[in-house]
């Protein structure tokens, strides 16, 4: 069943190559490599990608049921009834992830050669980047939750290091710290979930837990003392109306919200844009932040048992999507627009996961990795051309000077908006349709509500994307004159990866054409079929073709309207209201027409968007940050108060001992 020959043994090489490169670059980089530090890292990334590809081909060569390559390295934590190994698992799900991670990773490595060229800490950058590219495969290849957590923390660590890469800027190190702390909160939930799983199943192995759930095996959980079946155990109440299964999956999901920047823990991601742009592209858009989605897909058999958690996932994903999209509408900084966009798109993925459509979530993850990496790299290319300018209102008209960049950026934007036939269209459509056609026993009204909100979100998405594109590349130039003099296209080292990603963003959608389109176009759903052994079959809904087509048309139509509005607002309106007035002195100058336009803009678009984004940033600033800050203030208040007691007087310390004893005795003797 397993691959013959040395194939399983290749698995550890995928993370090992970048790790080795990271170590070597860190050791010999500063003295010997300097400007050539990239060679090792890029080679390692290429090697990892090649090996993943080889393994992938190997996997394809087997029949669908036995597409698993598994390698156990050594027993890691083992004692009594509990045992965990360090082992790698290469099944379709991890294969997809691994290909995306190493592939996009490789492209971004190449891009970084050009982008980071003159940085004094060139070697350090590549060392960190390789460290990341080693940790991420550990995450996706792990065959158990604990090793997954190792990769999880590893990529987190690299993320903090890279966000704070320019630690000379205090904002950068503050952002790194924020990312670290917010993620720790999420990790606490994750750990709790892991401990719960270990206590129920006695193992953290994906395969073993999956098998136990599937066969409804009997387990001996901590609270019962006797053995019971998995389903009974998951349904046992834990208090506060929460069952054991719900508690465990919610804890896991809470971990995912930290890493994948969902409400309420998304606050760190926009600040993470302090890091170098390739990092934003790789870690904070394409790969690491999707780890939460991967976790849910990996544990889908657990979530499938807990409809309450799924409802929460759906709700949180939708909420995140709309809040982040509405905030993105008013951002001036191109990277922050993209950051909020990422948060929003991750929300889509979680919404999909919340409906149980894990395949759709993973498919969107893949296409999103392509087009969002592309957009970030494009933004990086723009910044490269404009002396690190990130303010959209100081750009404009760049399409003439940055031909490759603007073209590829356009492709990415079209994919993000979800215009056919770009990649995002297929994946986003799939998600929306899954949301409307799902039923959740614990909250029957939820899917419909979420569908409506997601429709609004996709209009907002189209709007902010178009706004970004128009502001940056079209209209008149608002670039500072001394910068404008030397605006130049980026070197081929940077444009080649852009082109490659643009290609992927363009055709990537064809990999997973499903549903009505798949039927009509006779397109094979590669991704869906490939993932089927892991995530289960995707039902085709042949009877609801009409509804699906309507939904599709609605999404595209709304998007087009939003783009048109953005065009009016940010190209026409900004650039030449006076000119318009002069040129078309007839109907266009008519008062009614003007009023009409103003009213439409004002009441239908501008104000609601303003409200939404104000609500969004209000939630962001006051609620989320407020809670985080208030916790900090309270903690420091207590800290200070207790510090007062520690006044150096040893007899006070003795007195505290005495009072402690007295209080304890009082509580036990006097009842």
């Amino acid at each position, binding site marked *: 069943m397993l691959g013959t020959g040395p194939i399983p043994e290749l698995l550890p090489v995928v993370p090992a190559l970048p790790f080795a490169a990271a170590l070597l670059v860190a050791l010999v980089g500063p003295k010997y490599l300097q400007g050539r530090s990239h060679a090792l890292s890029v080679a390692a990334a290429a090697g990892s990608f090649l090996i993943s590809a080889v393994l992938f081909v190997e996997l394809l060569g087997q029949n669908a049921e036995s597409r698993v390559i598994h390698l156990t390295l050594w027993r890691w934590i083992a004692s009594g009834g509990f045992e965990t190994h360090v082992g790698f698992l290469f099944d379709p799900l991890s294969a997809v992830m691994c290909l995306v991670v190493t592939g996009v990773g490789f492209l971004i490595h190449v891009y970084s050669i050009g982008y980071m060229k003159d940085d004094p800490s060139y070697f350090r950058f590549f060392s960190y980047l390789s460290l990341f590219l080693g940790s991420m495969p550990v995450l996706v290849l792990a065959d158990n939750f604990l090793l997954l957590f190792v990769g999880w923390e590893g990529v987190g660590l690299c993320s903090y290091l890279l966000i704070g890469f320019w630690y000379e800027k205090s904002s950068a190190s503050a952002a790194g710290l924020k990312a670290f702390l917010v993620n720790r909160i999420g990790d606490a939930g994750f750990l709790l979930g892991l401990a719960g799983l270990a206590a129920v199943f006695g193992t953290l192995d994906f395969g073993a837990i999956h098998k136990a759930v599937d066969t409804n095996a009997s387990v001996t959980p901590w609270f019962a003392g006797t053995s019971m079946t998995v389903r009974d155990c998951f349904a046992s109440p834990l208090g506060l109306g929460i069952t054991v299964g719900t508690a465990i999956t919610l804890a896991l999901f809470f971990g995912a919200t930290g890493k994948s920047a969902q409400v309420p823990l998304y606050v760190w991601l926009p600040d993470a844009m302090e890091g170098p742009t390739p990092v934003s592209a790789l870690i904070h858009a394409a790969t690491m932040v999707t780890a939460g989605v991967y976790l849910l897909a990996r544990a889908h058999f657990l979530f499938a048992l807990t409809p309450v958690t799924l409802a929460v996932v759906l709700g949180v994903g939708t909420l995140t999507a709309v809040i982040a999209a509405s905030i993105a509408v008013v951002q001036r900084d191109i990277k922050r627009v993209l950051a909020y966009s990422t948060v929003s798109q991750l929300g889509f993925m979680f919404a999909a996961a919340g409906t149980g459509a894990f395949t759709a979530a993973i498919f969107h993850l893949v296409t999103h990795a392509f087009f969002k990496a592309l957009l970030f790299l494009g933004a990086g290319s723009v910044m490269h051309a404009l002396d690190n300018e990130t303010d959209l209102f100081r750009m404009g008209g760049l399409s003439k000077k940055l031909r490759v960049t603007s073209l590829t950026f356009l492709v990415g934007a079209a994919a993000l908006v979800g215009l056919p036939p770009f990649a995002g269209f297929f994946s986003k459509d799939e998600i929306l349709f899954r949301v409307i056609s799902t039923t959740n026993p614990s909250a029957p009204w939820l899917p419909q509500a979420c569908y409506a909100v997601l429709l609004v979100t996709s209009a907002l998405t189209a709007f902010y994307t178009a706004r970004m594109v128009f502001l940056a590349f079209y209209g008149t130039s608002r670039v500072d004159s001394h910068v404008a003099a030397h605006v130049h296209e980026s070197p081929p080292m940077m444009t080649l990866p852009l082109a490659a990603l643009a290609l992927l963003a363009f055709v990537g959608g064809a990999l997973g054409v499903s549903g009505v389109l798949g039927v009509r176009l006779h397109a094979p759903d590669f991704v869906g079929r490939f993932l089927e052994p892991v995530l289960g079959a995707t039902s085709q809904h042949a009877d609801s073709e009409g509804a699906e087509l309507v939904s599709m048309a609605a999404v595209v139509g709304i998007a087009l309207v939003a783009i048109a509005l953005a065009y009016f607002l940010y190209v026409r309106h900004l650039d030449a209201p006076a000119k318009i007035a002069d040129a078309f002195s007839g109907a266009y100058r008519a008062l009614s027409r003007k009023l009409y336009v103003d009213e439409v803009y004002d009441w239908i678009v501008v104000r609601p968007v303003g409200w939404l984004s104000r609500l969004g940033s209000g939630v962001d600033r006051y609620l989320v940050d407020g809670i985080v800050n208030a916790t900090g203030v309270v903690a420091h208040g207590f800290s200070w108060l207790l510090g007062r007691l520690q006044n150096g*007087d040893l*007899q*006070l310390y003795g*007195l505290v001992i*005495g*009072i402690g*004893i*007295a209080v304890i*005795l*009082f509580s036990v*003797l*006097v009842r």
Partner: protein
Amino acid sequence: MTSVWPLLLYYLLPLVGLWTYRRGGRTGTLAAGISWFLAAVALGVVIGDARSFAVISFYLLSLVAVMTAFLVVTGTNPVYGALSLIGTFTGIAGVFVVLQCEFFGIVQVILYAGAILVLYLFVVMMVDLPKENAQKRGGVRGIAAIATGLGLLALVVKALAPLGMRLQPAAGASAEPYSVRAVGTALFGPYLVPFEVASLLLLVALVGAIVLSGRERES
């Protein structure tokens, strides 16, 4: 009579007398103290279940120990404090004798009252300690300490009180377990290892005292 609260009163009332006396009152408080003392003795005699000489001595000796201990912790002059401490140790030694642990009473006198306190006095004289400053007593911390102490006392006594006479030795038990021979056999039998460790402990103390108090050496 197994109640312990009269006994508590018996110890505490003279302490209050001593305390008021120290607060500045002279003859009045002294008289009050003495009368309390006498009343207390009477109380002690009454609450003992056998009016033997030994029982009365227990109450008297223990009162002496308590009162001198009180003097130790309230006094201003450490020299007087050390001398009072001799009284405490002697009183306790007397109690041990009353409890028929004569060997241990003797050890108490020789080791504590003899050796340790002489060392104390020696050091006190050597370093020429001044009297403690006036701010030594009172203050919130002092009151808190007294309150804690009294609270703890009440709680501890509450827990100990129901014990009653449950642990009284069987009638006619021989004095053998308390003899020098029994203690010696135990020390060199089951307690041989602790005994050896005690020697280690004394070695540490010896070396430690030299290290800490010795003159600075060039290394």
